[in-house]
Structures are given as structure tokens and as C-alpha cells.
């Protein structure tokens, strides 16, 4: 059949790159790389109406009080506070690792600390007017913000307090705070590390409701 069937028809693919470019540009423009990071927190359970308020008495020295008012001024341990957030972090860290009057559990926690943290405790801690030991209920950071406090300051303070805890946890297992935050809890070894770092030192941050 002399009909020229021999030359097979071809779709020209020269403009394929251009089409791909167009699509690429479209997706480049619409992409928002998801940024889902933040400070995690667990709210206390809802108040039970049938239950009367249980008053838990803590020693004054075992509470680290942070207050922020509507002018964004801070009161830390009943003193007006002018230092930076970095200083606040250090103060909280000193408060957690004070071991002023440790209980049996507290001594156990102290013995489990690495040498670097033990030195830290011996240099900065053991003050009788600060927390007894970092175990449950013996070192609580209480933070209260007024209704007029800006969210920015609230986050900064919360960040500083969390940073103090994370640094203690991280140093306990010999890694940096950034590495500690990225521990993968699906991995057995890393989960064990995470558990070990938090053993006996609960993250006791109490956020009071504003008046």
C-alpha cells in the first residue's frame, strides 16, 4: 500500500518542558510549607462540680511564682523582675535543681544525675529557702498571667520555663536540648532515653487562671 504509512505519526514533545515548567510554577506559588510546630501543653482536667475543691498545701519554698500583669511587667518570687528571659530560664533551672531538703526519692534522683549536673547542684543549689527536690510536688513552677497580658509575653515566659526543664532533661542523658526535643518516641532506644531523662523530675508547670 503506497500510502505513506511507514512514517509513524509522532506527538511533538518539544513543549513538554514548558508545560512542566508552568505546572511547577503553579505549585511553587501555591505551596505553603506547613509549619506545625509549637509549645505543647496539657490542660488540667475539667473541674468536677460534684467534687469540692481539694486544697493541696505546698510549702512556700517549693513554689516558684511568676506573675505577669497587664502592663507586661513581671513579678518573680515576689520581686519585680527586669532581667531577660535567659536569666529567668537560669533561675528556674536553679530552682528545679536545688535539692534544699531532699526526700528519699529526691536523693535517688540526685544520685542518678550525671557528674556535670551534680556539680551544678553543689555550686548553685542546696539553698534552704528554695525547693526541696525536683520530685512530684516538691518543686512547682506557678505561672499566672493577667487578662491584659499579651500573648507574646505569655509565650516567652512559657518558653523560658520549658527551656529550663528541657535543658535539665537533655543534660541528664548527655545530649543537647535541641536533640532532646527531636527524640523520636516510636524508636525504642530513643523512647527509653526520653523516659530516663524524665524519671523523677516531672514537668511541674502550673498555669493559674487569670482573675
Amino acid at each position, binding site marked *: 500500500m503506497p500510502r505513506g504509512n511507514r512514517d509513524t505519526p509522532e506527538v511533538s514533545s518539544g513543549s513538554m518542558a514548558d508545560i512542566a515548567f508552568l505546572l511547577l510554577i503553579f505549585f511553587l506559588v501555591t*505551596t505553603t510549607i506547613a509549619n506545625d510546630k509549637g509549645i505543647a501543653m496539657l490542660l488540667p482536667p475539667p473541674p468536677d462540680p460534684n467534687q469540692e475543691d481539694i486544697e493541696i498545701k505546698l510549702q512556700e519554698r517549693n513554689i516558684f511564682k511568676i506573675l505577669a500583669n497587664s502592663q507586661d511587667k513581671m513579678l518573680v518570687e515576689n520581686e519585680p523582675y527586669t532581667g531577660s528571659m535567659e536569666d529567668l530560664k537560669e533561675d528556674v533551672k536553679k530552682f528545679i535543681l536545688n535539692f534544699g531538703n531532699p526526700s528519699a526519692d529526691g536523693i535517688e534522683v540526685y544520685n542518678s544525675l550525671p557528674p556535670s549536673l551534680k556539680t551544678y547542684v553543689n555550686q548553685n543549689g542546696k539553698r534552704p529557702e528554695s525547693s526541696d527536690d525536683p520530685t512530684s510536688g516538691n518543686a512547682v513552677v506557678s505561672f499566672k498571667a493577667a487578662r491584659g497580658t499579651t500573648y507574646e509575653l505569655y*509565650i516567652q515566659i512559657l518558653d523560658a520555663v520549658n527551656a529550663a526543664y528541657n535543658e535539665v532533661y537533655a543534660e541528664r542523658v548527655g545530649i543537647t536540648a535541641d536533640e532532646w526535643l527531636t527524640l523520636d518516641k516510636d524508636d525504642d532506644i530513643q523512647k527509653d532515653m526520653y523516659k530516663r531523662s524524665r524519671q523523677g523530675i516531672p514537668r511541674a508547670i502550673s498555669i493559674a487562671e487569670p482573675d
Partner: protein
Amino acid sequence: MSKFKKTSKSSNDIPTAALPDIIFMLLFFFMVTTVLRETDIMVKQKLPKATQLTKIERKSLVSYIYMGEPKNTSLYGDEPKIQVNDVFVVKEDIVQFVNQEKDKLSEVERDQITMSMKVDEAVKMGIVSDVQQELRKANARKLLYSSLKGLQED
């Protein structure tokens, strides 16, 4: 001599035949990473900066609450408002919203719902803590204060 001359006669053109493939690879990367935004945020969102950030482990468990001054102040005023999905709500509606979001999840996952609070840094704490009280009532206690990675200030 003629042997050496031959080898020096190489062309300087870069082959462009693989260009479409490279572009396609880039295209697929962006197609996969793209999340088309389903909600239109109607409040100002200048998230605060923090350093101690944790990642959300499972995105399907997350619901978002936006708070901030409305972008369209002539229509909605300049008081900070709460936005969920595509609408402004008052704080009393939060419980209902949480229950709706919980219904989307399977039975076992309901308690693990995480609320991501995207709050503008200029918002006052009053409204934020009101929302938190409502979340406590709705039993959605896992919270994430969405913030950006910031440098440690000195």
C-alpha cells in the same frame, strides 16, 4: 599527532535532553509537599517566636483555632476574634466545634485530639484563657501554642 588532535575535538554543549525529567522531578516534589489551604484566615497572624518547639506527631489529630485582630477591621471591628474553620465564633461555640472535630476521628483517637492555637502575638491573654477554659470543658486537653522558631534573645 593526528591521534591527539581527534580527542581535543569535543563539543562544549551541555546535553539538555534530561531537562524535562529534572523539571518533572521538581514538579512532583512540589505536588507532593503542597497542602492546598482549605480555610481562609480572616484574622491577623503574626505568630510569636519561641525556642522550645515540638513537632506534631500525627497531623490527622490536629484541629486549628485562630485568634487575632480581624483583617477587615471596618467590617468586624478591631477586637481580637476567634476563628474556626471559615467562620468567626464566640467562645461558647468552642465546645460544639471540638465535638464536631472529635466526630471526624475514630473512637479510639478521640481523646488524643490536639488543638493547635494559632494566636497573634498582640492578643491579650483574657480571650486565650477563655478559650482554654472551654477546651477543658470539651475535654480537649492537648494543646499546642503554634509558634515560630526564634533565636534566643539576649
